[in-house]
């Protein structure tokens, strides 16, 4: 990793140098945009939220006296008359991870001031996210149709339904919020707000392509959380 160039500041070598750089004046993270630092710390806090959810899930699953349903049966999808375990989830995960890729490309094109490519890639990311939420809605309705509810579950422990709807719902809310912002940012990119530094409607702060990277951080985080939810719900 190359160090950012800070006028009048020389980074110091070694661990003691790292400590000195950290404790130096003005900024702790040299050259890091305020918004980016904010997003990282927000994501740390959000990590604790999801950790609390998943740890509660483990504790709840371990304590319930009723048997936990078999995920490969509950989450199976009938394709051409054959039940294929985890089919839908595999597609959902693939779509979401792919959208992370398009997001990363959007950030790259943004910094290259390639407005069109950046805008299209953000739009592609938003569509990926929308597809994910749509498939999640499909899965929810399938489970609800089969009789799974937050308070009951024909396949076993009622806590399965409780935790499943709560945690995937909370994650789905994250994705949906991300999608809304992606659409707004796509519009702002196409309209050139980031090129001309147009002031935001709410905050009246100047637009900058760094905002796309900040949203990208959030988006990658949401994808990463999905990997954990996937592992804990569908593979355990």
């Amino acid at each position, binding site marked *: 990793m190359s160090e950012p160039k*800070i*006028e*009048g*500041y*020389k980074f*110091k070598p070694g661990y003691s140098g790292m400590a*000195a*750089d*950290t*404790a*130096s*004046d*003005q*900024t*702790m*993270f*040299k*050259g*890091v945009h*305020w*918004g980016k*630092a*904010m997003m990282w*710390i*927000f994501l*740390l*806090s*959000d990590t*604790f*939220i999801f*950790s*609390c*959810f998943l740890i*509660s899930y483990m*504790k*709840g699953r371990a*304590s*319930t*006296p*009723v048997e936990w349903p078999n995920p490969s049966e509950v989450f199976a999808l009938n394709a051409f008359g054959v039940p294929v375990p985890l089919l839908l989830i595999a597609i959902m995960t693939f779509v979401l991870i792919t959208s992370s890729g398009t997001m990363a490309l959007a950030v790259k094109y943004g910094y290259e001031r390639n407005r069109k490519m950046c805008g299209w890639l953000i739009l592609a990311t938003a569509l990926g996210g929308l597809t994910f939420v749509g498939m999640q809605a499909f899965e929810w309705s399938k489970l609800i149709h089969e009789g799974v509810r*937050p*308070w009951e579950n024909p396949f076993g*422990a*009622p*806590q399965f*339904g*409780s*935790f499943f709807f*709560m945690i995937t719902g909370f994650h789905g809310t994250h994705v949906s919020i991300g999608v809304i912002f992606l659409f707004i940012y796509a519009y702002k990119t196409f309209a050139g707000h980031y090129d001309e530094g147009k002031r935001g409607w*709410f*905050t*009246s*702060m*100047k637009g900058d392509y760094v905002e796309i990277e900040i949203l990208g951080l959030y988006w990658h985080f949401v994808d990463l959380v999905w990997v954990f939810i996937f592992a804990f719900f569908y593979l355990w």
Partner: protein
Amino acid sequence: MSEDYNDNKTIQAQSSETISGEGGAGVTSDTDYVRPAEVADQDLYHGHSFITKWVFCQDAKVIGVQYFLLATFTGIIGLILSWLMRLQLGFPELAGFMTAEHYYQFVTMHGMIMVVYFLTALFLGGFGNYLIPLMVGARDMVFPYVNMVSFWMFFVAVGVLLASFFVPGGPTGSGWTLYPPQAILEGTPGSGMGIILMCVSLILFVAGFTMGGLNYLITVLQARTRGMTLMRMPLTVWGIFTATVLAMLAFPALLVSALMMSLDKLLGTSFFMPTILKAGEVLEYGGGTPILFQHLFWFFGHPEVYIVALPAFGIISDLISVHSRKNIFGYRMMVWAIVIIGALSFFVWAHHMYVSGMHPWFGFFFATTTLIIAVPTAMKVYNWILTLWRGNIRLNVVMLWCLGFIVTFVNGGITGIFLGNVTVDVPLSDTYFVIAHFHMVMGIAPLMVIMGAVYHWFPLVTGRMLSEKLGKWHFWFTFLGAYSIYFPMHYLGFIGVPRRYFEMYDSPYVTSAVGMNEFISTAAFIVGAAQFILIYNIVTSLKIGKPAGKNPWQANSLEWLTPTVPPEHGNWGDKLPVVHRWPYDFSVPGAKEDFITQTTPPSEVAETEVEKT
């Protein structure tokens, strides 16, 4: 940390070792060099109308005052609830209008209001917003808009909380810990709308706090002014900063537990609900685990204690240093103690659950971590005392509050060592001893700091001094009164009077407890009423207080060095301050005055023995 920057230059006059005779010898053209700003000056939105200047305002100082006023308002409601509780306990014949249900509801709301909506909001939202940007030399918080939304989320959260007084069934009466299953089962007061509104309000509070917290953290990390290294920050900033880190990591657990409990109530899920028999019938609930809620709640709840305490530690360090005209003893030790206490606070939560039936080794682990916290805390107390030692103490109201804090904090800390041990805790659990302990250590002690801070910073906020005379009356009523309330409670705990009991019925200890309860209640009424001296003092001083002028306490830190007092939006006028030293250069040998402000360049104090910071 002078080699943090500017390492090719020579700062000869900054260190006491390089003093060389008279005439400022050793001062070169590079002496006062501070490297240029890394970040461009902040772009601020300046309000034009009344609404954007005073209501939906983006200025951290106004937001701080808004937080302060709303938190104080909520705190007064908490105070009135405590009066009602004391009326019932001391003079039940006068409290005929109160039922047991009312009593439980008042206990619950008093606890939640005081801990979350009063102390947390006041320290972090109030003092944090006002002081952080000023003390680190920023123009404002880094995201003023988000900061504004943070306050209004808090406003809504308070509104939802208070609304629960007016819904059918009233507010929740499950105790401030809201333990399920009883919190949401019929028979507990407010188990309908009350508990739902409580959970919603907490969720809103956490969301709002997160917005503010991100601001505090990034402002401290990334928006300090030139020359303001981490080890030159006032301890107030360190305390608030570390407390905010704790809040960002602890509030998620509260959010999750509040969400899961509201789902248990609203959707009939059984996250926390085991199989329950009620009047011979099995309820719909089953298979959940109430202990999980306790873990989640206390994973939030214990750091919460330090979210309140750490800002208090930081503020008191600054107040003691300024008013005893001496540098803070062991600054670095103080910083590290704050950080270590903060880190340890995440590993002690189960000491609130010793009686939940945990494995002995589990209790052993948590007792050990709990007692380890006593080490950095005791270090801090020694350092406060050593700061006072041979200082040029100004025995004004602020100093009185500081001394009151140290005494109260030591008192509450020592009973904490009792309760941290499993074997001592088990018999004392759920008695008045616990009430006495936590009111001393996280009620009265932080409150003393708030009071001291109010007398200290009132001149900065308003430009006028508070009346010293009224302040002294206020202090002595509060200090002696608080001891009259909580000291006897330790005894009540030892004779086994249980907490959260509406009345004592015909218990054997009723005889000795009754008189004491009357005494405690009387003291509580007086102490509560004494707080109105402060309100009267504030209201009158706004108009007729002595004009404070600039820097009335001769302090060093940046908040007193703004071009206008009280500071205006943007804080610093045209030019941001440049910092050359820490804020504790008091009574430096060789200096003309007994304080050297943080912005005083080294060349001006070349012949003094300043600390190398």
